[in-house]
């Protein structure tokens, strides 16, 4: 097993290096001058020259690349050109939003998708099955941005004034401030230090932070704001998971050992829970891994629709303002995360199905 993990890790390294290289040159190849994008239409040529000099944009490309690679390897993402702040600080502030959104969406997708798939498989070839699969097919085909706008229209406008009203944008209601748990508990920490950064990153997960500090007003408020975007984002993975669960369960239900279990007179519920499910979960795990990438990409669109300040909107803003370090950092982090997730999927897969390790 360890050997398999080692091989998988080695295999990931050239891919990660490739990603770093591709990202750097993609970011530099974007046309347009960061100066005019950032200083605006009233920027003079002199101001732009000073700007480029200050930001190191006048260095030759190979030198910029060398600096970039050595910084990246040390985990230093540099400073945002637009905001003059460390990109890592921006990631600390913005990633938790995206993680919360993505995880909530994935949980919704799992909580609805898997039972739906099981239901469809158990009631195979009945109207329930057909109905479920219609929902799944429509779900897979749903443009996230369209669904998001429709949800906002229904829940923020049509249902305004009812108890079902949900906010169409933002992360918390204005005026509510999430107090980081370390401040709430009176810890004194150095916010600039590595440990402080980690604590800050954790505390920016508002749901988690408000839960452990017992601030239920913020907790409910955050959840209320998350529902619409998370549902919109969850639709496609939910449908995919429902479909794969169904087909995989149908497949195992036809296998000999399940037939044997049935023939022995075990109740259907038990047959499914004990015998069929554990084997049917294999492909579901793969699909969940693949869907993580879909969720992240969908987060770009969802955040844009719901005006959420996550890394998705940060990426789009950075592209329009030619903020290279931010583009690089987000793309690299997303790709690296994706590679790691795929690796975890492979490993869990190997764990579940020992045959694969022998390859």
């Amino acid at each position, binding site marked *: 097993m360890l050997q398999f993990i080692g091989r998988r890790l080695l295999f990931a390294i050239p891919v990660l290096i490739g990603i770093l290289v591709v990202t750097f040159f993609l970011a530099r190849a974007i*046309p*347009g*001058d*960061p*100066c*005019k*994008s*950032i*200083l*605006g*239409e*009233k*920027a*003079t040529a*002199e*101001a*732009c020259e*000073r*700007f480029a*000099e*200050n*930001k190191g944009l006048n260095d030759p490309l190979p030198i910029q690349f060398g600096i970039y690679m050595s910084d990246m390897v040390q985990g230093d993402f540099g400073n945002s050109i*637009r*905001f*003059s*702040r460390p990109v890592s600080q*921006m990631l600390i*502030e*913005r990633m938790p*939003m995206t993680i919360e959104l993505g995880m909530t969406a994935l949980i919704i997708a799992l909580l609805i998708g898997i039972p739906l798939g099981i239901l469809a498989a158990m009631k195979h070839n009945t109207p329930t099955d057909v109905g479920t699969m219609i929902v799944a097919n429509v779900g897979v085909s749903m443009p996230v941005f369209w669904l998001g706008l429709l949800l906002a229209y229904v829940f*923020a*406008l049509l249902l*305004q004034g009812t108890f079902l*009203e949900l*906010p*169409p*944008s*933002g*992360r*918390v*209601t*204005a*005026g509510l*401030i*999430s107090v980081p748990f370390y401040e709430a508990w009176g810890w004194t920490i150095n916010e600039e230090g590595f440990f402080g950064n980690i604590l800050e990153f954790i505390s920016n997960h508002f749901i988690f932070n408000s839960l452990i500090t017992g601030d239920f007003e913020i907790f409910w408020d955050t959840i209320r704001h998350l529902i619409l975007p998370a549902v919109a984002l969850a639709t496609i993975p939910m449908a995919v998971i429902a479909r794969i669960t169904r087909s995989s369960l149908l497949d195992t239900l036809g296998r000999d050992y399940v037939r044997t279990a049935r023939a022995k007179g075990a109740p259907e519920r038990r047959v499914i829970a004990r015998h069929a499910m554990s084997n049917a979960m294999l492909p579901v795990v793969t699909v969940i891994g693949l869907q993580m990438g879909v969720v992240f990409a969908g987060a770009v669109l969802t955040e844009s629709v719901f*005006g959420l*300040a*996550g890394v998705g909107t940060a990426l789009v803003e950075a592209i*329009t*303002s*030619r903020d290279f370090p931010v583009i690089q950092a987000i793309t690299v982090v997303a790709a690296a995360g994706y590679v790691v997730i795929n690796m975890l999927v492979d490993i869990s897969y190997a764990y579940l199905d020992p045959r694969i390790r022998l390859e």
Partner: protein
Amino acid sequence: MKRTLKLLALVAAFVMVAAACGDTSSDTTTAATDAPPATDAAPFAGLSVAAPDCDYGGSISKIEATGEYEVTFTMCTPVPAFPAIAAFTPFGIQPEEHLAATGGAPLDNPIGTGPWVLDTWQRGDSITFSRFDDYWGEAADYSTLVFRWATEGAQRLLELQSGNVDQITNLSPDDFGTVQGDGDLTFIPVANPNTLYLAMVDQIDPFGDAPGEMTEFADVNVRQAIAMGIDRQRIVDNFYPEGSEVASHFTPCSIDLACGGDAWYDFDAAAAKALLADAGYPDGFETTIFYRDVFRGYLPEPGLVAVEFQTQLEENLGISADVVVMESGEFIDESTNGRLDGLYLLGWGADYPHVTNFLDFHFGKTNPQYGNPHPEIYELLDEGKTIADAATAAPIYEAANNAIRDLVPMVPIAHGASASATLAGVGNSHFRPFGAPLFHRSTPAEGDTFVFLQNAEPISLYCTDETDGESLAPCQQVVEPLLGYAIDSGNVEPRLATACTGNDDASVWTCSLREGVTFHDGSTFDANDVVASWSAGIDAADPLHVGNTGAFEYYSYLWGNLINAPE
């Protein structure tokens, strides 16, 4: 390069210190009359910053603390517009010590004298301010001010309708009626003067190393044909909100001296066709309309208006144009250098209420945005800008407007109306023509918190080195300049200066400062804070000239150039 810069900065800093010390001797101070508690008996040592000479291209020669509560600005040329410019937010005053302590970059911790103290900036979400109880003016009636942001107009309106926020900016044109018809909301017109124009380039990149080709628009007949062949009324009627008007001159008429000379051509498709035929294009030609997809008061719906121009050019003149949207930064870069082959849609919102802010920027000698600049226009402008007396300047601007009308470097289209909205319960709701609302003079609809929803998150809160309205709006709540714009007009009012008076030819301006003002950190405001704040912006050799981008855009653009600007 970097090393020489550092060296230069060191030398300059040394010179400055020397100059500052030297000044104490020559300073025949008058501060004896009203000295603050005599904790230190030492005479006031006034700082100053000066340009080595007046050949550097900028208009400021020297800024000097000529007394504990007096600052004198000596200019290189007459600058009649000084008060109007000095009232702009980037010229806000922070404590000298605070600038030094933050290394010239108080990006997220500004300290000012304004009615609001920065409390927390929750990145990505909101900024909270609390009332400054020791404000020199009348402090707010409520305790907390919150800034939030949402990009989409629909979202902003919905938040207002839900009562989550007290005031929103940049109402979508289609929502004007909705707000006006809603008894729970108040509609607030914003009177910031602006102009949308359709520009034409007569020669590609005329100032480039290898100037490009002459275009169809090199023929003045073609330009006049476009001027007459666009039904501007139809555009304003269909795409602009109520209160917008067709442009009779480039500069909106609410600005002094703006509307001398003949009004713009009337729409006349037949005459336009004839002119086009004279120029050798009886069947029109092919061209491109460039624009950027950015919402501005002068252009509320860029894509729709660009398509409308495309339609009109085809129908009225037989000119078939492609519509091309460009990324904003790239568009500005290409258009301002005259590198776009065709027509483009751009506009201008006033920075300060003065005719030079419109005409000099757009038709100056060094501006290649329409290809070759026209001496018939810029010679008049150069003459006009040094004249302080309005009656003397009037005929010059009249002639300049007529020259623009005859030569048609661009077609002025519209002056767009824009609007803000508040909940009906908000007291003294307003939106200033220049700058953001003065929130301490309003009151929230209910409770003790006022929530303001704008377009986007600020970039930083050190507005000496910012240019976007979303940063300038929160800055104004915290940091104040010497002067400020009135709540309902472009008139200039006292803020930290009780008055700024110019000499006869407007080349020396003396500002008397307000006494007994304290900063948010408890320190006392005096003339040295003014000099230090200005120096950090205008003097590139000042060690505190750091900021966010380091460009100090408004200093170099509004005052001609930075002092000691690196070559």
